[in-house]
């Protein structure tokens, strides 16, 4: 299954689906590939055509997926991009095989992951990401009757709590670390985005009986073999809440492994792109969260811009691109509103594990002066997740800069890494 495409889109979330759809509608040979078992990304995860109408954002899912299905776009689910054998190809691996595929244009729509920060007890089973728990529930986990504390920072907390409430979970409290003053300022900035204000209000209404407290953060999670309670503070007093699960995430960070691998210029943590989403590498466009955490609307628009530009429809793409600008401003405002407070740097105890793959403890890392030194001396970031979790944490905790990406950007079979470039046949693992 060695193949060549006009356009390859990596990431089948809303942005990737939009990009692949408009490019394929223009007659290009397009491949949409994604690590997940099904297209949809995070926000449309687990949606089915017969049940989608009752979900938030379900209508958009139906419109875009039916448009996509009407094209000849090839959808490769369950494939990960692990390397770039050349400037115009990707090496892919699935659970059963590997192959190289070529592109004329690459659109990276790899989305974002949650930022996790270490605090005592954060490795206990039952402590999950906020988006993490949401994804697991969309994948069939039943939260009915579970006592859940939602904590961390970002607009996701409210959306997750609303969804869990709808699924009959018992949300005990939502603890947002950002101060009220910054939240109010952010609320005012939303005047330019009435739809987002309405969405926020709708989520809040779902959880009206749940305390939503700003200026509060998790201090620790307690339990013997799993989380049994969490301790929360407002900076003056602490209190403990008994719970079954803690859903805790500190906003989102973009997945930049592929842009880094190709050498795309990254500025202030996001891929730098022009008005048509092209990165500093001419054949590569980046969209959605990779250019700024801005959510669904931004991803859909940028996806269309990049998809149209990739097939030579620059004028149409440029007309759409003007609508991206306010959404990019919204993304920057989000980052500012949910800036992490300094106190969060002091949550970890000396023995708290920071790198969950290698069990590197905070005290070991405190001795290091850089990410590179930490990797060499403590194996922090050298485990299976390749720093996907501890990288964003240590960036905040120690101001360590993370640059470059080394293949394979995902754990891969030795035979996949060693295979000859452009092997004509699929290699079965």
């Amino acid at each position, binding site marked *: 299954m060695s193949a060549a495409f006009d356009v390859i889109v990596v990431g089948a979330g809303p942005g990737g689906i939009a990009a692949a759809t408009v490019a394929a509608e223009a007659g290009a040979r397009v491949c949409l590939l994604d690590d*997940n078992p099904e297209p949809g990304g995070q926000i449309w995860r687990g949606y089915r055509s017969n049940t989608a109408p009752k979900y938030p954002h379900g209508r958009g899912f139906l419109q875009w997926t039916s448009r996509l299905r009407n094209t000849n776009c090839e959808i490769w689910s369950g494939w990960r991009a692990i390397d770039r054998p050349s400037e115009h190809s990707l090496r892919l691996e699935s659970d059963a095989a590997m192959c190289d595929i070529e592109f004329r244009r690459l659109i990276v729509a790899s989305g974002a992951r949650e930022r996790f920060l270490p605090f005592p007890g954060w490795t206990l089973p039952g402590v999950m990401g906020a988006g*993490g728990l949401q994804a697991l*529930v969309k994948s069939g986990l039943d939260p009915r009757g579970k006592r859940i504390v939602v904590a961390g920072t970002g607009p996701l907390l409210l959306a997750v709590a609303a969804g869990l409430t709808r699924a009959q979970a018992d949300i005990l409290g939502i603890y947002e670390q950002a101060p009220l003053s910054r939240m109010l300022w952010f609320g005012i900035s939303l005047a330019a985005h009435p739809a987002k204000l309405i969405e926020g209000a709708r989520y809040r209404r779902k959880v009206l009986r749940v305390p939503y407290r700003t200026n509060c953060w998790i201090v620790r999670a307690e339990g013997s073999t799993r989380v049994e309670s969490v301790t929360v503070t407002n900076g003056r007093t602490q209190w403990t809440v008994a719970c079954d699960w803690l859903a805790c995430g500190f906003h989102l960070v973009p997945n930049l492994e592929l842009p880094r691998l190709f050498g795309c210029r990254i500025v202030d943590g996001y891929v730098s792109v022009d008005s048509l989403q092209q990165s500093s590498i001419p054949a590569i466009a980046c969209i959605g969260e990779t250019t700024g955490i801005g959510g669904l609307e931004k991803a859909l628009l940028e996806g269309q811009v990049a998809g149209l530009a990739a097939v030579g429809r620059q004028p149409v793409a440029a007309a759409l691109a003007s609508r991206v600008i306010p959404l990019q401003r919204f993304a920057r405002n989000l980052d500012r509103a949910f800036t992490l407070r300094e106190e969060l740097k002091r949550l970890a105890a000396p023995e708290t594990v920071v790198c969950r793959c290698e069990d590197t403890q905070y005290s070991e890392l405190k001795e290091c002066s850089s990410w590179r030194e930490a990797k060499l001396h403590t194996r922090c970031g050298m485990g299976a997740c390749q720093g996907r979790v501890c990288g964003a944490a240590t960036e905040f905790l120690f101001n360590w800069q993370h640059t470059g990406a080394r293949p394979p950007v995902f754990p891969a079979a030795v035979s996949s890494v060693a295979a000859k470039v452009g092997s004509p046949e699929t290699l079965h693992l």
Partner: protein
Amino acid sequence: MEQNSDISAVFFIRVNGRQLQVAEGTSVAAAMIAAKQACRTSVLGEPRAPLCGMGNCMECRATVDGKSHRRTCQLQCIPGMEVVTE
């Protein structure tokens, strides 16, 4: 975000030899959380269970049908599937 109400078929998988009833469309990670079953033991011997739910953190790794280090959050349950924690 409610569970998919269109998943109706129910079947069994085995986790460390124990029968687990799951609904079609459920990820292996979701099934293991519901069964209060940790996925792996860490370097220092701690039990670990899914964290990110979307294929990034690798905490949900387990051996599935003889293949080690599978990310169970990216894997849907199939009747008769054999999961062994690591």
